[in-house]
């Protein structure tokens, strides 16, 4: 691998340079730094900050502005800006649809995250317990599921759960559940959600399991030996050594999963476009369907803004922790 040869090069270079008279050691000498040196970090960061500000910051601000506008196809085509105060928010918040969708999104997130965290943790612990060969086998399975592109996965799940010739219906029929032969999975809310949840769990478990396994390998062996000397059994050493060690990891992963699941878009949209009858729309899909599908862009922007708000509330505890932790570390 190229890194190793490059690595040798770097080690070779100082030897050559030593022949030259060494220049003034400028690195540590803070006093003599000219002013462009002091500006260096900001110049280095400028492109990244500018790009983030223009392409992430501006859309956020724009989203806020749009949510106070009356923006329907007529205004869109004629490039009109019609401010309408908080009408969009009034419309959204007083309708019953929005609250149904919020409730559905929350339940959807909780179910998914609980399944992903529990199963992912169990598989991660299993990885730690397996022998080399079996661990490699399971790793390959996890990596394949992880790497599968989302839209490829959604089409495969549509095929697995296809009404005719779908392999899932065939298996259920053979297992004795004969009413499932020819069952239309995308015909009801519960069944569509079941497919979406299975897809999301399948796709998300590898991240949790592989990282959790990596975290367990950093637990010092001595801790287990000490626990064993104190007479701890398998369960006791899990609760007193493994779990406390993994707790911070589990904590942050749970919140990351909450964010990812809550804003999941392609999985739900590509599987059934929020159907049947809008019954599997979560907040991001609802904003898209109202805003773009029905061309009520202002209303859609208001829903988007509220979605971000819900997300912020859900993750505020974690965000606070991130901020605090950074302060302590730096």
């Amino acid at each position, binding site marked *: 691998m*190229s*890194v*190793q040869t*490059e690595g*040798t*090069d*770097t*080690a070779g*270079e*100082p030897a050559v*340079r*030593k022949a030259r008279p060494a220049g003034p050691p*400028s*690195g540590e000498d803070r006093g003599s730094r000219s002013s462009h040196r002091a500006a*260096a*970090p900001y110049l*280095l*960061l400028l492109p990244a*900050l500018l*790009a983030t500000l223009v*392409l992430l910051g501006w*859309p956020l601000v*724009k989203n806020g502005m*749009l949510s106070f506008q009356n923006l329907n196809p007529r205004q869109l085509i004629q490039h009109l800006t019609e401010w309408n105060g908080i009408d969009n928010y009034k419309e959204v918040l007083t309708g019953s649809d929005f609250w149904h969708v919020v409730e559905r999104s929350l339940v959807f997130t909780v179910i998914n995250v609980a399944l992903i965290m529990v199963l992912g943790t169990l598989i991660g612990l*299993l990885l730690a317990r*397996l022998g080399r060969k*079996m661990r490699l*086998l*399971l790793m390959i*399975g996890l*990596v*394949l599921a992880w*790497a*599968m*592109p*989302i*839209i490829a996965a959604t*089409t*495969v799940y549509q*095929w*697995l759960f*296809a009404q005719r010739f779908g*392999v899932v219906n*065939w298996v259920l029929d053979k297992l004795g559940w004969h009413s499932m032969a020819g069952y239309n999975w995308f015909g009801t809310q519960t069944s569509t959600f079941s497919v979406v949840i299975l897809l999301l769990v399948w796709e998300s*478990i590898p991240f949790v399991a592989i990282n959790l396994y990596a975290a367990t390998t950093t637990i010092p062996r001595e801790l287990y030996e000490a626990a064993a000397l104190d007479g701890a059994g398998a369960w006791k050493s899990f609760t007193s050594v493994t779990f406390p060690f993994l707790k911070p990891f589990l904590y942050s992963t749970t919140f990351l999963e909450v*964010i990812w699941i809550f804003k999941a*878009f*392609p999985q739900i*949209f*590509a599987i059934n476009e929020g159907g049947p009858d809008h019954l599997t729309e979560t907040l*991001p899909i609802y904003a898209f369907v109202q*805003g*773009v599908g029905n061309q009520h862009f202002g209303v859609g922007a208001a829903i*988007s803004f509220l*979605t971000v708000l819900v*997300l912020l509330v859900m993750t505020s505890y974690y965000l606070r922790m*991130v901020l605090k932790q*950074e*302060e302590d570390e*730096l």
Partner: protein
Amino acid sequence: MKRSLFGRIWPNATAVVLFAGLVFPVYWMFATAFKPTGDIISENPVWFPTHLTFSHFQKAVDADNFWTLVGNSVTVTVCSVLISLVIALFAAFALARLRFKGRRGLIVTFMLAQMAPWEVMIIAIYMIVRDADMLDSLVPLTAFYAVMVLPLTVLTLRGYVAAVPKELEESAMVDGCTRTQAFVKVIFPLLAPGLMATSLFGFITAWNEFPLVLILNKANDKQTLPLWLSQFQTAFGDDWGATMAASSLFALPILILFIFLQRKAVSGLTDGAVKG
């Protein structure tokens, strides 16, 4: 510590069952893509295809604009990843190595930006791109994808830069290198695995991106593969052979890249430094 027979068997048995469950959707995609139509629409599934056919792949490749869309996807993905790597490398170096006012705030900014809910900002992005008269163009897509992967790239690279021992850089500077030379000659080569690992996640994000291209690029020859694939299924209806062939073609580059780069990325930064 000897474990009972049961204690030795159940983890392995569970692992095999899990492996089968995890791999089955991927396997079924490829298997269906290679099966003759008669085996796909059969009352009993053909678990292991014996007669292989490439006709489904032919059909997928012959679909309108297929190669244009491959070109679009590759262009957008590669350009956005490269752009974000370059921009992020500057930022990561500053954040990892230099001390300055506002550093902490900036790191937190990138951490928050990493969680940005792009999926719900698409309406605003649509308006901005439309007002700039750049709908149906690959430029905004590339720019937005670059920024989508930028925060993670900065934060990950920052870790890799910080992991290069400061002494290596300092000794180069004592030996007469300028800070820039020290970076190019000492740190950059050691960063190669980090750059690869980081680009992997960029590639996946950009290759997969769906909501933004869904709303921005309606013209058939300006779309990317995810959008095409999601419509391929709608357009071809029950032709699962062709749909799975299309999915396979779309998934294959990422599966290969993932398996290839994951190993490279893990094989260590430290090897290089220690062996040197």
